[in-house]
């Protein structure tokens, strides 16, 4: 089903993550765990952010299910941005379909972080945290929507970054800002009434609420919610691809 060349690219992308370091084979799990610990310490110990009771009382669980998909998204976009430039030698000297380069990056990130979240969920669940492992399945449409959106963003930024290299250094701060404009480290309910509605402008708010609902509130969303999310993801991906297709065939001259 997957073209063999794309599979080879994805395999290589996987291997790239795990080359070199001693911890390389477990880094995909260790790194987000460390990040999770840092956020947990900062937000629950230092900032003492209160978690509304309806989420079951485990800030760690709340943070984990909202943060992991976001890490998958941001990492995909950040790693994709320089991907065409980095693979310049490959794409200017072979007839490799260019759209596959960011595609392999995004697919690898999502595969790793999906697995990481599954591991964390089972770990927390085994430790008695109040979350529903079945949500691993019910959140699949939300994952798909996020994957498609990441793909669209990855195509866009990777192509534009070849022509205007300023994109890559700008992305980090922008994505970091967006991290605080969605209910990831805090519940929507603790925000003042005047601010709360504005968070819905951030598309990730829709996704993260789906994750919170499925894992912590035992919600089964109506089908139209998942459909709408996936439709949104498809639109993102198509828009990104449209831009990629206009730019990518002409980037050789700038690599």
């Amino acid at each position, binding site marked *: 089903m997957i073209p063999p060349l794309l599979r080879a690219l994805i395999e290589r992308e996987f291997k790239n993550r795990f080359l070199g370091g001693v911890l390389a084979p477990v880094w995909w799990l260790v790194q987000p765990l460390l990040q999770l610990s840092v956020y947990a310490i900062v937000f629950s110990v230092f900032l003492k952010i209160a978690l509304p009771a309806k989420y079951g009382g485990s800030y760690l669980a709340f943070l984990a299910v909202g943060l992991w998909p976001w890490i998958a998204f941001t990492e995909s976009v950040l790693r994709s941005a320089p991907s065409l430039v980095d693979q310049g030698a490959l794409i200017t*000297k072979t007839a490799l379909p260019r759209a596959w380069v960011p595609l392999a990056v995004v697919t690898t990130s999502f595969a790793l972080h999906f697995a990481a979240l599954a591991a964390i969920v089972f770990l927390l669940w085994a430790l008695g945290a109040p979350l529903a492992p079945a949500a691993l399945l019910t959140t699949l449409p939300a994952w798909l929507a996020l994957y498609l959106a990441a793909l669209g963003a990855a195509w866009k930024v990777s192509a534009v970054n070849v022509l205007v290299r300023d994109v890559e250094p700008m992305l980090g701060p922008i994505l970091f800002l967006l991290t605080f404009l969605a209910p990831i480290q805090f519940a929507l309910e603790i925000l003042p009434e005047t601010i709360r509605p504005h968070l819905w402008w951030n598309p990730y708010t829709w996704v993260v609420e789906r994750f919170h609902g499925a894992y912590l509130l035992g919600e089964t969303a109506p089908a139209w919610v998942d459909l709408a999310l996936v439709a949104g993801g498809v639109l993102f991906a198509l828009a990104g691809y449209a831009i990629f297709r206009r730019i990518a065939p002409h980037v*050789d*001259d700038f690599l």
Partner: protein
Amino acid sequence: MIASVNASAARPLLEVHGLAKVFPRATRSAGLRALGRLLVSGRSLGPGEGFAALEGIDFTVARGESFALVGENGAGKSTLLKLIAGVLQPSAGTIVRHGTVGALLELGAGFHADYTGRENLKLAAALQGLTGAAFEAKLPEIIAFADIGDSIDEPVKHYSSGMVVRLGFALVTALRPDLLITDEVLAVGDESFQQKCIAWIERYLADGGTLLLVSHSLYHVRKLTQRALWLDHGRMRLIGSANEVALAYQAFHEAKQARAKGLAAAQDGAPGAQSGGEPLTPYAVIELSIRAVGADGARVSGRLWSRDGRRPQVSIGIVRADGTPVYGTTSEIAGIALAADGDNHWRFALTFTDWRLLPGGYRLRAHALDPEGLRLFDTVEREFMLGGATRELGLVRLPHRWEHD
């Protein structure tokens, strides 16, 4: 008859029409402007912008034919190969390929330094469409051809450049594309590996393969290809048989080297001859021509002028286009007296017979000498080209015979 019908029924493997490629000039804002234009109009360059690397390229390559691109550095050869390989997009014109294309543009391009030779082969093979079981089946053959021993499981960063080349070429031997594109790959690797590559290419050609070769080695061009295109500053300068193009290109280079050495040829007549005044030297060559140039000789004739009316001597020589002397003689050596041809003018004519010159670019050189044959006054040259299909090397064919039992 049947063969010609078959030949006309066969489509060319590669058709290139009106091909042009324009590169943007590298400025800091070029990317931003290109981005704007691509999003608005789908073109990366505005009219008149950029640097034309190729323009007006038209040719076809038939199946089973081999074709060479020659030209100086920067003439656009590699750009043309990349366009044909589908790696670059043309700015104008079309490229039609009927068959699989395998490109060896830069050996080892796309190899990742941290991966082993084996791992790199896998992705490189996948890039050329060789995957899964088919790849596994070919792998021993590839590794045997590369012949780099246990290094196949070492990271490529520990390879010498020659080993990278071996790996890259070995992969191509397994792929056997309909059209093989190679860019100077024969110039790398050690002697024995080069010979192995050439032997493989010859077998590939004998089995009906089609080759598109860029090489600075005219020997390889003549040996491996039938037709050739000479690119000069992105334009077609000459297209024809490999031999014809190689000769013209070689003559161009020899002439260029001669100019660089300061041996500039006094191409057009004696000094002052055209201006109608008297030549500046006491004796001068005022006419020189060479006709009926062929493998077995040529006819040379000309006129000399002498200021004092005494009968001058003439010296005639043949030099290679780069100035290497081949042969020279004088009327004084031969004991010939030039025929009078009106006041102060003298005629001469001679015929070279069976001169054994090998194909290439040459110059006929004539000097006027004083009647004693001691002092040399004027130098006039005429370029000429000697065609031929032989692949022998050097200036002249030395008579020889091979001994065998």
